[in-house]
């Protein structure tokens, strides 16, 4: 870890108007690790813990606003989240460990960085960490890397579970920056690596995530978060699927689906979701949806298993949602 300046501003204006190489500190479960590993080297750490973003608020439209500083644990346990967005609670509980979820915040989860081994190890070439050095993950040990949305420059997986549910729920991200406030759909929040893999998301310098807005979710019990990982707890997804379905008389009215562990960002394909519109559930339909979601998936050296596994996980998740029996995150049996 290198020397850095530290401040804990009380207002957004103070927090946003800082020149130079700064990083916001929320729960610190990701940032501090990266600083210890010499991956992040901010000159100035701005602790945003005093900013007023600690609440979950009911919205007039029946939605919810999740403050950026509410912890993942508190969010998953909040009665309104449990009642209206069990899919989100489930995805959060599928991630990390209780200790980490107690520290981790919603804003931090959205902005967490990839777990690519090569990104984490400053001895290795990495375009995301050190632009222009190359991508050591290509041709390397990359069974955890992405197969969708990759570029020549970077194949890093976006690792969050929570954000996969947020994408399926079509959440919106509220930002406060030096030039004022704006909102962005969560599906547009993260960037594809393209030629600029160092940009994880659309956040501009000085911009802070203040809250995440959830629109009303009409899924009832027809949702699930299904995560396949290397061990039964405390591991990032190899493949995960968040699904919400509006069911009517045994037919799917409309569906929302996002993939985790597979893409360089939460992976959503509107054309795949459109296939579900007003259709009865069937194996062939779900196979088509999976095929459409995985269209263009490309494996590198070690991660072809993801492409083999994903269709089966997608189909199972869709059936779980259809039958209104979402995956439990404590009983590890996959129903």
């Amino acid at each position, binding site marked *: 870890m290198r020397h850095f300046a530290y401040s804990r501003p009380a207002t957004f204006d103070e927090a946003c108007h800082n020149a130079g190489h700064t990083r916001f500190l929320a729960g610190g479960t990701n940032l501090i690790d990266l600083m210890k590993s010499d991956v992040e080297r901010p000159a100035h750490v701005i602790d945003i813990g005093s900013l007023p973003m600690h609440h979950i608020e009911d919205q007039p439209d029946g939605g919810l606003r999740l403050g950026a500083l509410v912890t993942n644990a508190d969010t998953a346990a909040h009665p309104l989240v449990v009642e209206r967005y069990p899919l989100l609670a489930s995805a959060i509980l599928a991630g990390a460990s209780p200790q980490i979820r107690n520290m981790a915040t919603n804003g931090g989860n959205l902005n967490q960085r990839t777990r690519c081994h090569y990104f984490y190890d400053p001895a290795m070439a990495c375009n995301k960490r050190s632009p222009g050095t190359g991508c050591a993950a290509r041709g390397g*040990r990359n069974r955890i890397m992405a197969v969708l949305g990759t570029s020549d420059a970077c194949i890093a997986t976006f690792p969050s579970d929570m954000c996969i549910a947020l994408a399926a729920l079509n959440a919106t991200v509220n930002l406060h920056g030096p030039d004022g406030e704006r909102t962005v759909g969560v599906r547009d929040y993260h960037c594809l690596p393209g030629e600029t893999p160092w940009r994880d998301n659309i956040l501009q310098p000085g911009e802070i995530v203040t809250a995440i807005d959830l629109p009303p979710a009409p899924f009832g019990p027809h949702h699930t978060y299904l995560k396949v990982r290397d061990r039964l707890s405390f591991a990032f997804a190899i493949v995960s699927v968040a699904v919400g379905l509006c069911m009517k008389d045994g037919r799917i009215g409309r569906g929302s689906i996002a993939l985790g562990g597979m893409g360089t960002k939460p992976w959503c394909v509107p054309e795949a979701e459109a296939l579900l519109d007003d259709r009865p559930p069937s194996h062939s339909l779900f196979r088509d949806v999976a095929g459409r979601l995985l269209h263009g998936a490309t494996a590198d050296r070690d991660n072809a298993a993801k492409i083999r596994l994903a269709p089966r996980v997608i189909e199972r998740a869709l059936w779980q949602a259809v039958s209104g029996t979402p995956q439990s995150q404590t009983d590890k049996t996959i129903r």
Partner: protein
Amino acid sequence: MNVISTPVGQSVSRIDGIAKVTGQAKYAAEPHPPGMLYGVVVNSPIARGRIDTVHDAAARQVPGVVEIMTHLNRPHTALFEKAYMDGLGVPGAPYRPLHDGEIHFNGQPVAVVLAETFEAAREAAMLVRVDYERWPHNADFKVSLHQKYMPSKTRSNYVPPRPRGDAARAYALSTVQVEGRYHLAPEHHNPMEMHATTVIIEDDGAFTVWDKTQGPQAVQAYLAGALALSKARLRVRNPYVGGAFGSGLRAVYNVFLATLAAKMLKRPVRVTLTRPQMFTHVFRPEAIMDIALGASRDGTLQSMIVEGVTDTSRFEHNMENIVIWGLINYRCPNATADYKVAPRDTYTSSDMRAPGAATGVNLLEMAIDEMAYACTMDPLAFRLHNYSDTDAMHDMPLTSKALREAMAQGARHFGWQRRSMPPGSMRDGRELIGWGMATGIWDAMFSPTSARARLGQDGRLHIATAASDIGTGTYTILAQTAAEAFGMPLDRIDVELGDSTLPQCPTEGGSWTAASAGAAVWLACLSLRRKLIDMLARSKNAPPWVKQDTVTLEGGILHDVTENGPVSLSLPDALSLAGYDALEAEETAKPGLRGKISQMRKARFTHSAVFCEVRVDAELGTVRVTRLVNAVAAGRILNPKTAASQIRGAMVMATGMALHEESLMDERVGRFMNHNFAEYHIPTHADIPDMDVLFVNEHDDEVSPLGVKGVGEIGMCGTAAAIANAIFHATGRRHRNLPITPGA
């Protein structure tokens, strides 16, 4: 007072438990001598080459940095490679930290930053830049297989396989044949406590080195040799060790570098490794075994051909006993085995819990399961059908082998008889249920060990030996042994371990500590008891009833029954009547003539039978281990509670071996890439079911003086295979690579 009349064999909780959970137990990185410097190691990012230039100007600018030690400015060390040899007996040229500018492996230390604070040392370490001249390397096991060889000088504990019959011919003639290549990924030990050293400089200039090691006397000898220091002025301590599993069998570079820095700067120094640095030294070698089994239709094994290769470094020849186990454990008229090592440009692989057997037994037991199925025989029945009552490889009788009983008891407990044979035939909803089993075998070893027993005026019995309790419960079982041998309540016994100045004890490993140190403590206590009564009987102040053959020592009190009724004497009184402040006795347990003859004529092993249930999602292939039963035959069990913990811990580790643990080598750079606990997966609670451990009655007074065989490693052997075999039973799919990960 809690008096247990026969403390040995009781489930006594750890006597060091309170010290551990209250933070009083001091580990290697915890002493804080005044003026201590913090050392942070800089590691090489390349696998082979030479250091061109070390750019340390920026690092030296960091306030608090005192020195940056490299091969260029380090103080004098031993001239000859031989001086770096350690007790493990790995042939070759040991790696010498900071010896010169040559790089032998990725992660090799190239500099140590020493600073007044840890933060300064770490920051400066990040600023050290090193230019290298890169040389070609190979870190790919598949490539190194082409260069496999048999070292001309073998490792001291290496057991060469002994062929019998004509295995090739018998295989060709066998009606049932199974052949395949089995593979185990490299693994890292990853004890919870990371390797660390604190060097304290005593007033007279002597060094006290607190090190995380399994052998304080071995580290003392190593440092004395490698750093040309006098043994008399070098004390190594490791009273508490937070797990090791073999990673502390050889001196790790932190102890060399910390001591070297203390010598250079004449200041106390601490060097701790980070978790990523735990992936820059010893690991369990990657292994392949080519196995060919032949049997007649009735399930009688006719031929066994086992060819194994493990990796080693380019500079040392690490060897393991991976190919012999099937030859020993199965009655099969024709058998042969071959073993070689394959060199690659990494650090030297070495012993990790049940070295050799964890690899060899598990991979072989997977093949045995295939053979049982090829013969359409129940896997347990197949093993019983081919059971050997002797060491079939050396054609030697065994001191004991209660494996048959272990199989029977384990099977009964598990409910094996309810198993339906065809794979995929047991199902619960979407889950396929699989039942698998395997047997385990491991050496039962005994090494010469000394211990001291001392009775003080306070009436307490003090036991001392240079053994290491690496978290296994050694303190506790030695106290129990002393309590029984001396006739003393457990709570009046102190045990001192982990100090090179104590009576000689071999490095903790191989599951021999309970048998060896236990025997030494037993002898020392008997000797002290005899001495006490003798001295007392001889003293003119002593009561007349004190005689060697009539007096008893029980509950810490001397008793006798005379015509006038019972009489007794407390130990402090006995000492003062005898005219002593304290009495002590030291004894060495070693095989006597009878023991030596027995060692030549009889083989000795622990055995186990492991049963496992898995549930596998029929479509996704995800695996859950839902039951594990391990029936262990390990001679006398000194403490069922700590012993069962050892077995359970090993079963957790073996579950990791079967399903999770794999150090991912990037061959292009020779570096293990998943070097942290987020990405190197060890089992979590969710991965581990209730585990039942049964100890089978096995009386064996030949194997070691106390009839103890040791339980530290047997739990590894067979468990991973039982899981893999259960997965086959569930799904009908054979996996020959461990670990079996999602999508595999």
